[in-house]
């Protein structure tokens, strides 16, 4: 497709379970970002991948959160032992420019995670 896609669009899980969220960026975009948005709030940065560089993980809230990007394209965000406070919309974005350049980001539709 032409845009950023994310799956699943909705995920309901039980507290303590692990979840995996997937992001397919726009083809050729070297930068990929994950954000979290709680209800009625702004976006909270989680992690940033740029090409083959080491990812910027400074926004991950705990060691239960991890992400990888395989082959410089698809990314998976994994949340282990989910907690109720993890409930939020998880947004992925990609950009064809990195540091020091105009970095307009293109967002996917998000995954709404609900932890019961």
């Amino acid at each position, binding site marked *: 497709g032409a845009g950023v896609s994310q799956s699943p669009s909705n995920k309901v899980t039980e507290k303590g379970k692990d979840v995996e969220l997937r992001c397919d960026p726009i083809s050729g975009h070297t930068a990929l970002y994950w954000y979290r948005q709680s209800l009625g709030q702004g976006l909270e940065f989680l992690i940033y991948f740029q090409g083959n560089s080491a990812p910027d993980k400074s926004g991950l809230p705990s060691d239960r959160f991890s992400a990888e990007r395989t082959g410089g394209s698809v990314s998976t965000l994994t949340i282990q032992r989910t907690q109720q406070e993890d409930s939020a919309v998880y947004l992925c974005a990609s950009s064809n420019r990195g540091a020091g350049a105009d*970095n*307009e*980001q293109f967002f*996917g539709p998000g995954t709404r995670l609900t932890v019961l």
Partner: protein
Amino acid sequence: SQQGEEDPQALSIQEGENATMNCSYKTSINNLQWYRQNSGRGLVHLILIRSNEREKHSGRLRVTLDTSKKSSSLLITASRAADTASYFCAVTKTSGSRLTFGEGTQLTVNP
């Protein structure tokens, strides 16, 4: 502390009126961007203004940037009901490339 803080938090206007939203930030920036979000899902990029620019236009949108006051404004002229959405400003700090978003302004345009 939160970068890219918008005000007002909520704005309700009549169709045809202009809507102005403001954004303040705390650090030196490379650029400032405005995004729109419908129904709490994906964001759409509206406009980017670089730190050496003062004003930019795109259709019914006008963005200003005052780096001395560390503030920006987004003006939507002749608003339409379809403009109803949340609007976020986001800054790219000069030291990095990731965006830092504010809490957003919820705009409601009444028909």
